[in-house]
């Protein structure tokens, strides 16, 4: 599903060059539920941007879903993001002027799906996260947990190969956070590949496998034989 070899990403800070990622090797198989854990400044956000095709690495090889996307153009990466990746953000990142259903349909619009199919699909995924009856509400009319579930529905709408969640419980209280985590487990059991980025060891402990990242390097690099599926 994801193969990364020697991924480097550098940032320029004045005259200094800081390596946010310093030769990262990662291997994630289909249907895995993996967390990437590290303290702030460890480079996990940079890693998540590269995994999510929001940014490109300076060096290294990245194969995603069988495609070598190392040298993909901005436009091609947009297509990958739209069709193969579903994002769940800490800040929910729903468009405030659209209803829950319209938010869920947005990625499908960019994929060129017809209105009829979009309505059907958005109802399906909203039903799956248990928010069918709130589909005409705007984000401001929903609680934090509900907003995050709408965001998960939006991530699911395009039937992506990978769900990429960046601190999905970071803005939620522990109870709703637990509900959201339960939803992720359900999705994993249904066969989705999920990568969850967090700084919270308790969250990471809930996933079958955790990749620790520190100072731009993966700690305790695992062989494929060690991968727990």
């Amino acid at each position, binding site marked *: 599903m994801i193969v990364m070899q020697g991924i480097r990403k550098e940032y320029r800070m004045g005259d200094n060059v800081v390596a946010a990622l310093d030769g990262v090797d990662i291997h994630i198989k289909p249907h895995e539920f993996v967390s990437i854990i590290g303290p702030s400044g460890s480079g996990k956000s940079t890693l998540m941007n590269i995994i999510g095709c929001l940014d490109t690495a300076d060096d290294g090889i990245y194969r995603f879903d069988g495609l070598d996307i190392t040298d993909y153009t901005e436009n091609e990466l*947009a297509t990958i993001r739209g069709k193969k990746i579903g994002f769940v953000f800490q800040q929910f990142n729903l468009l405030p002027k659209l209803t829950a259903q319209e938010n869920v349909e947005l990625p499908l619009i960019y994929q060129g799906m017809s209105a009829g199919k979009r309505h059907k699909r958005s109802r399906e995924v909203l039903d799956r996260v248990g928010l069918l009856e709130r589909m005409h509400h705007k984000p401001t009319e929903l609680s934090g947990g509900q907003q995050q579930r709408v965001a998960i529905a939006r991530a699911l709408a395009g039937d992506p190969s990978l769900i990429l969640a960046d601190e999905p419980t970071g803005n939620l209280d522990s109870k709703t956070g637990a509900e959201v985590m339960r939803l992720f487990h359900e999705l994993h059991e249904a066969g989705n590949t999920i990568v969850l980025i967090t700084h919270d060891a308790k969250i990471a402990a809930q996933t079958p496998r955790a990749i620790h990242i520190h100072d731009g390097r993966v700690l305790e690099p695992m062989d494929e034989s060690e991968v727990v599926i």
Partner: protein
Amino acid sequence: MNPIETIKMAFKAIWGNKIRSFLTMLGVIIGVMSVTVLMAIGQGTTSSVTDSISSMGTNMISVTIQTRRFGFGMNRSSRSSSAKGTVILKAEDVLALKDNEYIQYVSPTVSGSLTVKAGSTNTAASIMGVYPDYANIVNTELASGRYIIDADVENRSAVCVIGPDLAEDLFGNTNVVGNTLHVNGRKFRIVGVLDGTSSTLVLPFTLAQRMLESTSITSFYVSATDSTVVSAAQTAVERFLYKKYQDDSTYSIMNQEEMLEAMEETAGTLSLMLGGIASISLLVGGIGIMNIMLVSVTERTREIGIRKAIGAKRRNILLQFLIESIVLSGMGGLLGLMLGYGLMHVLETYMGMSVSSSAGVAQLAMGFSMFVGVVFGLYPANKASKLKPIDALHYS
């Protein structure tokens, strides 16, 4: 991605910010409104002027003579070198043109402004001294009474034909044949009332010439016997004048067609100038749109980031913002057009202005406003589309 979806998105964004959208459009609304109204006024004026010229008949030739007056402000050298200026053109000389086979009517004219008084009402009116033929040359119609006749001219009779607007000013009505009025203290009897909207007072030539203290004739009108011989008649007049003055810069001869052309050219320039001034406001409106779109791009940076993260390509974002600005300017154009037509209606019905709106101007104004939307939307849209998804997502 379906273009209809993009248009829907644009409308949603515009509708979501109603007051701002309206204020943004206002520039274009005012621009388009002023373009259409000013162009319509220009065209209306043109057509009413050309109508009145062509109603005078196509056979007319008008002659103006630049006389040199010796008086205040003239220097010695121009006085001594202007022997030709001393040539005095008499009415008999001009009337002799009638003998030409191509010339049907001739009328010397004299005009000026004098004080006209009726009862206790005083006003400065434009006075015109004519021969009876003048009525035939310019197709004068009378509402009532009679025109100046030969006997009036010969006897210097104190009679006048009054323009209806002047009659209205002096008497409060136009049914004034038989009434008297005073011109510079001299009593005149009204024998006729002109048709139309004139405010001129027409007097017998001889008397008017004396009252306006003019000696040489400065203008006269000629009509050709037929519209096909206008140029032959014009040549005859030219020959006559050249013989008299030996200098073709002292007089100017214009036939009706030339006059119409000159008038249309002037009016065309006027329309163009009015339209040009109005287009500047349209341009300013466009800059207003660009300004707001740029603010909007900054404000919606996060939205752009979200859209890009979930699969929007550069093209999608570019189109979204471009269409938004085109919709803004297009809607502004449409509203401006509607308001413009409303204003034209008011000007026409309540202020009696002659306006003539044309579909061409409406199309031009709409086209131009859409064009403004594209041109001034392109830069902000391009800026939005170029935002990197991570930078845009982490913008707060």
